[in-house]
């Protein structure tokens, strides 16, 4: 339980500071510290992301940064892809899904290193 709360706080702080969803930290946290399977961790992460995204959207919208029409369109258009992604994830073995996820977070890590080095201090 303490582990889950720690994962949440850490993921949230990073999300707030760097503008990424907490998912890239929630999933490995749930696997490594709570011993969920890769499939369970991904599914649980999706549910955990919702309150974070709602609060983030509310705050950003007050600053006038959310383009509501585009967001709605984007959200609705993505539903087919999301259904396909979930079906694909459940068709893969835990090992294959886990290795693909590891590759994904390495790519995200590389993006952040590039961003950090590109930006003047």
């Amino acid at each position, binding site marked *: 339980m303490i582990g889950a709360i720690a994962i949440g706080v850490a993921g949230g702080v990073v999300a707030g500071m760097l503008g990424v969803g907490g998912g890239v930290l929630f999933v490995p946290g749930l696997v490594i510290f709570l011993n969920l399977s890769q499939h369970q961790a991904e599914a649980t992460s999706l549910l955990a992301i919702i309150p974070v995204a709602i609060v983030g959207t509310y705050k950003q919208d007050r600053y006038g940064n959310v383009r509501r029409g585009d967001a709605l369109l984007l959200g609705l*258009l*993505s539903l087919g892809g999301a259904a396909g992604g979930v079906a694909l994830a459940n068709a893969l073995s835990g090992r294959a899904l886990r290795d693909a996820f590891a590759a994904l977070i390495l790519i995200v890590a590389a993006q952040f290193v590039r961003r950090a080095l590109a930006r003047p201090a």
Partner: protein
Amino acid sequence: MAIGTAAGLFSGLFGVGGGSVIVPLLVLWLGYDERSATATSLAAIVFIAAFAAGTQGLYGNVHVLDALLVGVPAVGGVLFGTWLQQRVDNRSLSLLFAAVLVASAVELVLR
């Protein structure tokens, strides 16, 4: 349309919000500035994550209690993170975050 489909696929497959796909594409293809892209992406993620979580629920993969234990404290974390963002150097944080991701990837593959 392509952005939406790619983001949805990504989100459903990997259990992440899809922001890492949406934000760069909004900037590159639709000429968004980074702040509007991040904000608009967050709003779209509410829909994507809700739908994908519901679909995963049908497969019986969602641990609701764990999701609440992670998701609710995360809201506090976001508020704190947004506040902190104005006060510390984002560059070192980006590098630290990257290091945590690399360590996580290694740990996942070796398990």
